């Protein structure tokens, strides 16, 4: 009878799931990325909701929002192979310290000479419809009227802005104005990252919000960007290119 044989199939499947007692030997390891932010080249930590002086433009800038996407984290092995973190989409919000620590597991043990980061959300995900988790449109990093993610959102106040405020929603995933950047970051002093089953190395990466204005100059030039355009591409590129690995420790 059909009913009984289906039941036995289910029973067999359930038994198979629960019957293994021996664990296979696991040589995979973990690592962590900790994103930190400094202001200009002063070495002083970047602080939100504080008036900061920009040494190049002379602007005073107070950031009330700073959020940006990182995705597709990969490690390059010395043998040329590449480990890719599965479903790697991370929304970093400087106001939320927990969002600045990214944990990765299941990395094959070995030596790695570069960390690859995609700054922003890759273009394929921008044309793949509804997403969840970090990519959920409810995170307010998404344009409802012109489908695409806001890769970097930086907002705040500045006396140098004609409106007193600045608001940068930097997005655009295709063509010359793309705000996405994929980059391999090397470890300091040519070190290698060693992944072993014991311990979790922490990669401290450093970003510099002042770099947003590196080419754009004073906020007065364009205090608001809310759609893909040349200036968005330049600001995103300047910020993303300025991210580096500061140090690694166990």
């Amino acid at each position: 009878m059909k009913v009984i044989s289906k039941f036995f199939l289910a029973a067999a499947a359930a038994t198979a799931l629960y019957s293994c007692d021996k664990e296979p030997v696991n040589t995979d390891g973990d690592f962590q990325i900790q994103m930190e932010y400094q202001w200009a080249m002063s070495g002083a930590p970047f602080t939100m909701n504080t008036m900061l002086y920009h040494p190049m433009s002379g602007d005073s800038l107070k950031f009330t929002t700073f959020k940006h996407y990182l995705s597709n984290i990969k490690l390059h092995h010395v043998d040329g192979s590449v480990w890719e973190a599965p479903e790697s989409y991370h929304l970093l919000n400087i106001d939320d310290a927990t969002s600045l620590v990214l944990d990765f597991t299941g990395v094959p043990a070995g030596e790695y000479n570069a960390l690859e980061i995609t700054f922003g959300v890759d273009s394929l995900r921008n044309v793949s419809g509804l997403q969840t988790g970090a990519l959920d449109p409810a995170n307010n990093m998404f344009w409802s009227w012109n489908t695409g993610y806001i890769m970097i959102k930086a907002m705040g106040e500045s006396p140098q802005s004609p409106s007193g405020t600045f608001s940068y929603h930097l997005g655009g995933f295709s063509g010359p104005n793309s705000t996405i950047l994929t980059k391999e970051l090397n470890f300091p002093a040519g070190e290698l990252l060693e992944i072993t089953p014991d311990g979790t190395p922490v990669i401290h990466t450093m970003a510099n919000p002042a770099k947003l204005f590196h080419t754009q100059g004073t906020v007065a030039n364009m205090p608001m960007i809310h759609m893909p355009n040349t200036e968005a591409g330049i600001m995103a590129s300047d910020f993303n290119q300025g991210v580096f690995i500061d140090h690694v420790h166990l």
Partner: protein
Amino acid sequence: MIRFRTGQLAGITIAASLLFSCSDDLRKDHSWRKDMLPEHFPEPVYSIDPDTLSEEVVALGRDLFYDNLLSSDSSISCGTCHAQTHAFAGHGTPISAGVHGRLGTRNTPGLSNLAWHNSYMLDGGINHLDLVPIAPITAFFEMDLSLNEAIHRLNSSPYKARFQRVYNTDSVHTKVLMKVLTAFELTLVSADSKYDRVVLGDSVFTEVEERGEVLFQSNCASCHTPPLFSDFSYANHGFEWPSTDAGRGRITLAAEDSGAFKVPSLRNAALTHPYMHDGSVYSLEEVLDRYSDGILVHSNLDPRIEGPMHFSDEEKAALIAFIHTLTDYTLNTNPRHSAP
């Protein structure tokens, strides 16, 4: 006798119950779902598997489509502006009012045959059907409700239990909300007009309608291509220059796209006045007059239009008679698409 641990017993029970619960749906009457993919239509762009859309999912989407809780002041629903009696276009006004009577800048488009579009909104700014409702729900001039607030309201309402039942989810979130709205929208198929019955051999045109069809094929069909009556391209047809709304140009940022808008499907056009992106043309008669003598030949004019078409009064009347054969009274009266 085989000894099972508690975990194994639980596993077997769950597995067995799952095997028996799905078969009910597949034995139900499929006729409403078959209507979602008319035989004389091409393959849709959005891939639909009617078997995955249960009555419960569609009903949930329908109920939300007509529920005012998705607007900030709970005064309007999707159905307020997308009115069934007008083929889910606006209620005969150039611009539909949102919450607090706010007015945007563009006419409410009709909603039917959405799975055959390749992009959405009059300027094509949205590239996936599932993402569309986010725009009107969150727009200041429309429903002005943040996604987080919409989700909070749904999770504090009887809708939460309904979502838990149809999707394997603890609570409502963006993806499941959009999916049920898409499910309802996909049932809004318009394929039962007199034109369709003629194509399928069940009816015949009158002489005037036949004359109109011949004129339509040679003057209109390169953009308003049957059977969907649009090729979903973007075109500037010379009714206004310089353009006061960049239209497609706002999305592509290309100067040659300024003033171009999506070619609308002409299905049900007799019910969706006023016309054009801003609702500025009030009647089909005026539309034909403009195509006949009012086309402005300018740099962005679509290459498929050479200039004013110079129709005679008899030709205009025939074209209008043909457009009337595109009215689908099934879509506009089907209780499955109506407010609950």
